[in-house]
């Protein structure tokens, strides 16, 4: 009786190491680490592929805000503002709702990578595994800025008449990008925290209601007192006010600074939270 009844068939044992020397017994084979920001580049490429291939969710993240805008403008708009100027009021709110909706899919992507073991595989490699989050966030930013651009184009088609200068447009884009970045990172952290992809989706949903309790769709002072307090002190209101001021020239009243401050705080908290979750959740699927 031989110790190895199965001897490898030379026809099937074709895979050898790519090094030309067959007797690799001598030296330790260590894999090299990717250089510089190669890891980030690889993951951004991966997440962009995901975004482009998931046509359904890409379409949804554009169609939903557009439908929302048409509905608010033509269905509720007349009741809210009989002058027919409601579209100028509502665009910033639609943009933020759109961004929130688009960013929420990041939670799903991250949770999927966690539960599928993909992130665990990365963690066994000598790479910055957290770059996978960077990839998702960057792709989400690109995707949502694209969706935002389409929403603005449709808004202009139905009567939106911004008065912004080039400088103000630049500020608008920067603020929207900062908001998307902050909220995407928050959704990424939620994706890490969630036990499953489904619950990640559920938690994310709660955040999507914030714009409704702000100055996005109706002026805050039409709300009951206790709600006014909340609406005035939640992050979405100053961001909306700042965007509206930049786009159609309403009063700024310090909302710009508050908006940037809120976004920065959310971003910092989300990054810190995600970093902690990322290390603490290893190997515990």
């Amino acid at each position, binding site marked *: *009786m031989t*110790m*190895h*009844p*199965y*001897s*490898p*068939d030379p026809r*099937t*044992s*074709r*895979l*050898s*190491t*790519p*090094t030309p020397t*067959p*007797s*690799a*017994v*001598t030296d*330790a*084979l*260590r*894999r*090299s*680490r*990717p*250089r510089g920001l*190669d*890891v980030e580049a*690889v993951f951004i490429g*991966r997440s962009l*592929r*995901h975004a482009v*291939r*998931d046509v359904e969710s890409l379409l949804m993240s554009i169609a939903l805000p557009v439908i929302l805008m048409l509905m608010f403008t033509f269905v509720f708009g007349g009741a809210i503002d009989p002058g027919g100027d409601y579209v100028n009021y509502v665009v910033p709110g639609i943009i933020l709702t759109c961004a929130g909706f688009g960013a929420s899919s990041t939670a799903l992507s991250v949770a999927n990578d966690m539960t*599928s*073991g*993909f992130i*665990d*595989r*990365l*963690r*066994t*490699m*000598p*790479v910055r595994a957290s770059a996978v989050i960077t990839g998702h966030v960057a792709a989400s930013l690109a995707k949502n800025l694209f969706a935002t651009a389409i929403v603005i184009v449709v808004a202009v088609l139905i009567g939106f008449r911004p008065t912004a200068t080039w400088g103000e447009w630049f500020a608008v884009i920067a603020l929207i990008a900062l908001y998307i970045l902050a909220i995407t990172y928050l959704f990424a952290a939620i994706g890490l925290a969630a036990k499953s992809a489904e619950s990640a989706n559920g938690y994310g949903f709660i955040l999507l209601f914030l714009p409704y309790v702000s100055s996005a769709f109706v002026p805050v002072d039409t709300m009951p007192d206790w709600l006014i307090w909340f609406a005035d002190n939640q992050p979405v209101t100053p961001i909306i006010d700042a965007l509206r001021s930049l786009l159609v020239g309403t009063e700024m009243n310090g909302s710009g600074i508050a908006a940037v401050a809120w976004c920065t705080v959310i971003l910092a908290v989300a990054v810190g939270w995600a970093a902690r979750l990322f290390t603490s959740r*290893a*190997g*515990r699927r």
Partner: protein
Amino acid sequence: MDSTMRTETNCETPTPPGPPAIEFTGVSAGFGRKPVLRGLDLMVGKGEVFALLGANGAGKTTTINILTTLLRPDSGRVRVSGVDVLEHPDEARRCFAVTGQSAAVDHCLSTAENLMLLARLSGLSRREAKARTVQLAERLSLGSFIDARVGTLSGGMRRRLDLALSLVVPVDVLILDEPTTGLDTRSRRELWAEVSQLSSEGTTVFLTTQYLEEADALADRIGLLHDGRLAGLGTPHELKARVGEDTVAVRDRDGNALAEVPTDGTVRGISAVLGSLDPDYAEAAVTLHRPSLDDVFLSFTSNDEVRPRQKPVG
């Protein structure tokens, strides 16, 4: 089968020559208050193929998670290629490649793109990665589904890709958690051939499996994990010798056992047994029964104090 091997049953196999590729020293780990590993000691030599066996929930995957830096043990020390896994995880990660128990592949990408991704993450340039992807796809016969979205592949194809991902760059130690579960016979044989080939080139292979014939065919040594420790350790041959001896079984036409007599397995021993049989059995069928790895597994992973041994009947 020579009888001198038979008498070594009381000693553990000595550690193989050469520096150890994997070293567990007094490793304990648990989830909550439930201990899974309780002072595991284990050493795997360079170039060895080591199979870790154990019942479901014995802690094989936990052992691999500790080895691959995914899980910190409560106590103990782990080294890969001499690198301390707990103190220098990032350096240790350069020494091994692992394919876990469940497929960790990207479903949105194609087979080729998955291989590309892993190659790029392993430090290959874009051009090297492309060349390596083509090479691997050909060598592991992934060609037929190289451009298919992984989400559309069958479970076995996905598993083959998953295994290919751990072979993207050569490393000291290859770690495979139940690699052939779900593979068809041909793919399984191909993987076995692959493992043997890599091992002959000096790669250490640490694998778990529920297929005992796989451990028998592949492993230089086998460890049986039970109750948080190695309950048995040795070559497949030694382990089989430890659970019982060869027996000559005599059966009638309907397969009923008439007699089962222990033997040393030599021509002389078996002739003696046959000569001593009842002449009435002249028409009966005779088989030589050897303990299989199944017997080894059942014996070493049972909770009974008394281990089942084969006893002569009739």
